[in-house]
């Protein structure tokens, strides 16, 4: 099969269906391993006590929230350059998961901040940037919902994602500048404790779990998107799962 044939939703639909469970299982295994490392093996931190164990999910979610946005921007560039529907559908499938990861990062970050630094929300550089990232995700979702024509929505969200992706480093740099100015000492509220290597391993394993989870979820979601948007096609009507609904 040539690579460009993958750009056809009809070809990609079954492939995604075969790949997604594989990614889901691997994500599950990594998650169990990561949590085991994080809770059973990693020692108590000298400064933060047990509270630091939140980082295993917080850091993974934060990394994924940024990475997913970049991948979304990548698919958006492809969608605008080659005018392929599937590229836009891939971008569309990533947005909710990206917003989810951002929310988890914010929630777990707040619960980490309270016992460690005494406050749920401290307007530090990383958390404030994460909040703005959440707004960017919501913006893409709101734009998708507001535009009725799916093709126009594809292109509009692609432009918005790219403009947002270009802005993210600028936003992060400006928020960090603003924060160090007003907090004086450059102690980040959510600074991780000095990393024993086992803690770092736990974080990396959880990050891998989050990555494979995101891929699995995106593949499942793009299948639904393909069904929604290709529903007048003959190949969709011929699918066993569609026929099962009819009967």
């Amino acid at each position, binding site marked *: 099969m040539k690579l460009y044939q993958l750009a056809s939703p009809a070809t990609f639909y079954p492939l995604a269906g075969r790949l997604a469970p594989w990614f889901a299982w691997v994500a599950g295994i990594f998650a169990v391993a990561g949590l085991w490392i994080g809770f059973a093996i990693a020692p108590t931190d000298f400064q933060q006590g047990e509270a630091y164990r939140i980082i295993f999910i917080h850091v993974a979610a934060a990394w994924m929230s940024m990475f997913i946005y970049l991948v979304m921007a990548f698919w958006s560039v492809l969608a*605008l350059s080659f005018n392929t529907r599937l590229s836009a559908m891939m971008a569309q499938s990533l947005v909710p998961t990206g917003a989810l990861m951002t929310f988890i990062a914010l929630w777990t970050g707040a619960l980490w901040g309270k016992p460690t630094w005494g406050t749920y929300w401290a307007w530090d550089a990383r958390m404030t940037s994460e909040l*703005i990232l959440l*707004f*960017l995700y*919501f*913006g893409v979702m*709101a*734009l998708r919902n*507001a*535009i009725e024509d799916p*093709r*126009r929505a594809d*292109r*509009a969200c692609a*432009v*918005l994602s*790219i*403009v*947002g992706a*270009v*802005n993210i480093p*600028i*936003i992060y*740099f*400006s*928020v960090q*500048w*603003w924060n160090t*100015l007003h907090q004086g000492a450059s102690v980040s509220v959510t600074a991780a404790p000095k990393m024993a290597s086992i803690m770092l391993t736990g974080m990396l394993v959880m990050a891998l779990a989050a990555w494979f989870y995101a891929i699995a979820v995106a593949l499942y979601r793009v299948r639904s998107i393909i069904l929604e948007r290709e529903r007048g096609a003959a190949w969709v009507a011929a699918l066993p799962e569609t026929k099962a609904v009819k009967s």
Partner: protein
Amino acid sequence: MTAIAHTASVTETPFGVLAALRWAAGRDLRLAMRSRSELGVQLLFYVIVVSLFPLATSPERNLLAAMAPGVLWVAALLASLLSLSRLFATDFADGTLEQIALSPYPLPALVSGKIAAHWLTTGLPMVVLAPLLGMQYGLEGEALAVITLSLLIGSPILSLLGAIGAALTLGVRGGGSLLALLVLPLCVPVLIFGAGGADMVRAGLSASANLSLLVAGLLVALVGAPFAAAAAVRISLD
């Protein structure tokens, strides 16, 4: 299109960038001048919002002076947003925008002309009023100069970024709030460096870093935003 033909005969490159800029800006300015009261209302919104903050907090001089850069900047952002939805909407509604997009003139240049007119009618008046409003808040001397300068450099960036959002949300339900959701996060760096400059001066430091970054941002926006906005216009017209 006789206006374009006339302009074209005056310039050297008939379908060039400058001709497009001049035509688009001139037309939008002429249209804006016909409804001067609308411009006045937009400016009045800015003044009222700025006046609300002391009423909601306290008239204590030190507090106001500390708040001033932030208040002036946020109010400028909101006032800019209000007028942005009209940047393309009226032309879109009566089909003029489609004609503009079909013309042989480069669309980014035409869009830049519209953005320039928008800034001249919305941003520039706010810059002119800034010293007065700053004084109301107890800002003096260098801080006053810096806040005005930062608005002068920064408000065009708001128009440029906002134009992208306005083009993306053409004819869409819930346009105004959606536009705010899309544009405001992108404007955070401008807000931080714009308001931060006056803060630096009040703390006795130099605002040159802030202003340099704002200028850099303006240059990047001048180069990039018209193309992004033009692409967004074509997407909305299809």
